[in-house]
């Protein structure tokens, strides 16, 4: 009869083990990776490594197909200390998955190394109803919704672009929405800037924006910034957000937002609109071009109708 020690040694021969730093590096590169928490559901609920899915050790062989069917994709497994997942990794290897990695030291060492974990708080009955249409979408589901509720997005500009974007994100349940604009509501704004109402004329845009979004969805914490974004405040403000939406209306701000986002490693969802034309793109630092790659210098005034 084999001892546990022998079984573990045998498993470790067959699979690869990596430490928390390696996993962190893999997650940072955005490479295709399936991360599976093989602990029991109650352990997972107490905290897990984002973006792990939970498939308990006992169900792994039966349910691995729901996580991936690609035999060559990198699969990282972890449990509490790295023992259960070593045996689990061996089982996947035996099933024909070629690139199975065990997280050495498991969740415990991940936490001890000072790495971030997430804990899902249970959704309320209202939230389950409010986001039920998201749950029907396989790509979002309950897990995606929790992620949205934990997310922080800064919308720069509460005007023609910022209004609908912030409004939709509030509806979708983005947990923290910063909204930044130094202007006041003018009657000429109202035909398109849908966060503001007639009674808001003369009020700071971020005030009416905050009220409208809070009324739409009480789950959202709206953080109003009643100021124009400048070189003096931008870094301090954007550093705490996961994602930046640029809905500004001038080139100066776009270059500033682009530069600050790049330097701080923030993804910038860019949009601009003029009369009947609009454009949108995403500037993700080092994954694609930035605004300056697109416009090394501001387009000459002649090309931009005023």
């Amino acid at each position: 009869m084999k001892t546990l020690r022998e079984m573990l040694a045998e498993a470790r021969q067959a699979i690869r083990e990596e430490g928390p730093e390696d996993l962190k590096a893999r997650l940072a590169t955005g490479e295709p990776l399936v991360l599976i928490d093989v602990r029991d559901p109650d352990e997972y609920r107490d905290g897990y490594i984002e973006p792990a899915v939970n498939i308990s050790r006992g169900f792994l062989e039966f349910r691995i197909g729901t996580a991936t069917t690609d035999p060559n994709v990198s699969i990282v497994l972890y449990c509490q200390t790295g023992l259960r997942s070593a045996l689990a990794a061996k089982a996947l290897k035996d099933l024909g998955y070629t690139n199975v990695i065990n997280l050495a030291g498991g969740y415990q060492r991940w936490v001890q190394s000072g790495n971030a974990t997430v804990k899902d708080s249970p959704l309320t009955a209202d939230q389950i109803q409010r986001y039920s249409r998201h749950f029907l979408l396989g790509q979002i589901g309950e897990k995606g919704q929790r992620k949205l509720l934990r997310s922080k997005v800064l919308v720069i500009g509460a005007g023609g672009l910022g209004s609908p974007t912030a409004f939709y994100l509030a509806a979708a349940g983005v947990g923290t929405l910063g909204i930044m604009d130094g202007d006041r509501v003018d009657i000429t704004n109202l035909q398109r800037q849908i966060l503001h109402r007639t009674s808001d004329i003369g009020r700071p845009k971020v005030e009416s924006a905050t009220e409208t979004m809070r009324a739409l969805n009480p789950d959202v914490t709206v953080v109003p910034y009643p100021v124009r974004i400048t070189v003096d405040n931008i870094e301090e403000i954007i550093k705490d957000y996961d994602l930046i939406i640029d809905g500004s209306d001038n080139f100066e701000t776009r270059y500033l937002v682009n530069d600050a986002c790049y330097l701080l490693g923030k993804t910038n969802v860019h949009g601009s609109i003029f009369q009947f034309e609009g454009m949108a793109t995403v500037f993700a630092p080092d994954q694609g071009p930035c605004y300056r790659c697109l416009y090394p210098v501001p387009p000459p005034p002649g090309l931009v109708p005023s």
Partner: protein
Amino acid sequence: MVQATEAVKLLVGFGEPLIGRLLTYDALGMRFREVKLRRDPNCPLCGKNPTIKDLSIHMEGAGQACAPGDNGQGTSPPSAVGPAASTLPPAKPGG
């Protein structure tokens, strides 16, 4: 709408984001086009030898982060996608 959808995709982590692609929208003709964007190796910010390493270029009196003549208005038409456009492949219908 496009920006909000992109944000949700990026936050949750699904789909194919608009990274390296410029989506243009012409409401008059009701046409969407997609232009592939490449990184500029000479980009002063994200290129191989960056000259912009902090935000000092944006400080008052520090020179031009943004050349004079900027009229502060929205977008430029897709045909005016700056000098980089000449190196871009032709736009493809999309959307």
